[in-house]
């Protein structure tokens, strides 16, 4: 709750400092696109840190997955398999290969940690060096691109849902959120537990709807630049009607993040796997004595982390529309920082998915806000580092107050 407040204050503060340039549809659109890659991995990092582990290899793993996918779509499929460039199945096969590779590498690291009991810090520190350089080896250090024309649509600006589909999705999401609020209220009432008063429930529902629909409205309000629109019409052999404006709508990459965050929130709160992750983080011995296979659980958590690294690799390389040798550099630190700013405790057992996404947003907002205000590059990183430490301090003080 406090974090949402901090985020709102931060945005308003930058908006005032930049004289209203921070909270424009254009900047919010860019901010959300820039956040996606780190936020997706931060969701997985919550599970890793909650089970009292750490993963220092996510940036390097992202690079390896990106390299594998880049080579698959620019070398293997077009020439070795003779499908040619921009074949309609290329992007699907490439993504499938990348996700499989990420999951397997993650699971492999999980086996080393869970079954061979090598500390996660060491395994993933080794992984950090190994996967960064596997990526280098696979591409010979070259920038691989341009990537498949369908693949790059998952990167952000190159692929958005358009206004109508965005509104539809927004309404579906709002309806789903309201239905879930109502269903949980009904379930509590059925067992005779106290429920929130009707007015509080109503306010909560209204805020939920306003946030979802407001976000969609903002993204729709960012119009595709006229030149770009003209070219899109030219590509289809049509002439652009005079005075036409078309909004971008929700980028596919942000849609991916939304799906990941929603699914993982359900996994964390409403599945046995999620329950066991938190139990293991709270007391590993108790979890084992309750019959939970904590070793296999570790493998599953790291496999999930690997899968999400590969998904981030899709978004990150598609956004750049090529694979570069330094992709994902320092991402491990951003991802861990996002999870920690989002309230995930390194001592294990505590953390939320939405917190991690919010943490990633706060970091990105800080970085781009300072750039807009004109803060020198070294000071930007100094501030981000100080904020990380401060956020954890506030979290500690807050928990002490609550006595939890």
């Amino acid at each position, binding site marked *: 709750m406090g974090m949402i407040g901090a985020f709102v204050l931060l945005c308003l503060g930058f908006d005032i400092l930049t004289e209203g340039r921070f909270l424009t549809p254009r900047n919010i659109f860019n901010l959300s696109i820039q956040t996606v890659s780190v936020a997706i991995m931060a969701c997985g990092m919550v599970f890793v840190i909650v089970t009292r582990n750490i993963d220092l290899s996510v940036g390097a793993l992202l690079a390896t997955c990106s390299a594998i996918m880049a080579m698959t779509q620019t070398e293997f499929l077009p020439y070795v398999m003779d499908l040619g460039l921009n074949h309609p199945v290329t992007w699907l096969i490439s993504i499938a290969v990348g996700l499989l590779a990420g999951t397997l590498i993650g699971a492999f690291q999980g086996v080393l940690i869970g079954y061979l009991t090598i500390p996660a810090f060491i395994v993933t520190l080794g992984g950090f060096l190994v996967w960064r350089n596997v990526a280098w080896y696979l591409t010979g250090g070259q920038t691989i691109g341009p990537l498949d024309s369908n693949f790059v649509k998952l990167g952000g600006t190159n692929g958005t849902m358009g206004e109508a589909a965005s509104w539809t999705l927004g309404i579906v999401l709002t309806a789903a959120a309201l239905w879930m609020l109502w269903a949980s209220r009904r*379930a*509590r009432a*059925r*067992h*005779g*537990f106290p429920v929130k008063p009707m007015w509080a429930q109503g306010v909560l529902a209204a805020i939920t709807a306003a946030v979802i629909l407001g976000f969609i409205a903002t993204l729709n309000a960012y119009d595709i630049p006229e030149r770009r629109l003209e070219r899109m019409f030219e590509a289809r052999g049509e002439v652009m009607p005079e005075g036409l404006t078309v909004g971008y709508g929700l980028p596919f990459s942000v849609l991916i993040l939304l799906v990941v965050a929603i699914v993982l929130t*359900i996994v964390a709160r*409403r*599945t*046995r796997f999620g*329950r*066991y992750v*938190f*139990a*293991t*983080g*709270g*007391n590993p*011995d*108790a*979890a*084992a*004595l*309750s*019959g*939970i*296979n904590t070793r296999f659980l570790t493998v599953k958590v790291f496999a999930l982390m690997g899968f999400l690294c590969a998904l981030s690799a899709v978004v990150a390389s598609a956004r750049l529309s090529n694979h570069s040798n330094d992709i994902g550099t320092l991402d491990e630190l951003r991802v861990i920082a996002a999870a920690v700013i989002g309230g995930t405790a390194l001592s294990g*057992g*505590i953390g939320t998915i939405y917190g991690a996404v919010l943490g990633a947003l706060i970091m990105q907002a800080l970085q781009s806000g300072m750039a807009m205000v004109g803060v020198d590059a070294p000071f930007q990183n100094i501030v981000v580092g100080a904020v990380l430490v401060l956020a954890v301090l506030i979290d500690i003080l807050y928990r002490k107050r609550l*006595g*939890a």
Partner: protein
Amino acid sequence: MVDRSQTPLVELKDISVSFGGVKAVDHVSVDLYPGEVVGLLGHNGAGKSTLVKVLSGAYQKGGGEILIDGKPVEINNPRDARANNIETIYQTLALADNLDATSNLFLGREIVTPLGLVDDSAMEAECRKIMGQLNPNFQGFHDPVSALSGGQRQSVAIARAVYFNARILIMDEPTAALGPHETQMVADLIQKLKAQGIGIFLIDHDVHSVIDLCDRASVMKNGELVGTVNIPDVTDDDLLSMIILGKTPTPVTA
């Protein structure tokens, strides 16, 4: 009185456990009949906790045999123990402190909806039901158990052991952290469970509570079994000398 003419509920035969050359349990045999409470006595490090952890699946035995209803069973992990209706209340309670009472009660055995999601409301309702029987004063169903008092935490651990229709219950110093009122609550519970035909291994330091609660007592010293006696046949001094000197009392002439 306990009927010992039938097959025992549990037989631990010739059990050995060693940790890196140190024999923590050395060829120990004990048994337990339905509706019976068997006390396990001994100094710290005598091996009593280690012995029952073999039965609860926390440790693997180095040698020997476990029989339930006369049939040999393999218990390699806590899941196997639970499958054999063996429940344990650990001295450390073994609770996940960051989760609430309901999640701890059902940990590893959650109630799920048809979609495979955990059904928190249904579990909380069950949790309130059993807590109402065990400890009517229990509050804080939504707090993490770290925020509960010692007695409340103990009731969560006890609830977890008795909720799932245990046939064999292991209690490792269940009253060590409790006040007099809660200790009495545990004593009453043991009587109730006994009447239901559940067999209980009770580990305790306190000779008097063993005399009050148990039908038989097995005394261990340095990993070996000193002997098993019928509680009505012995005095507290007899038990103490078994614990301290490792001597079985001279049989009472009958």
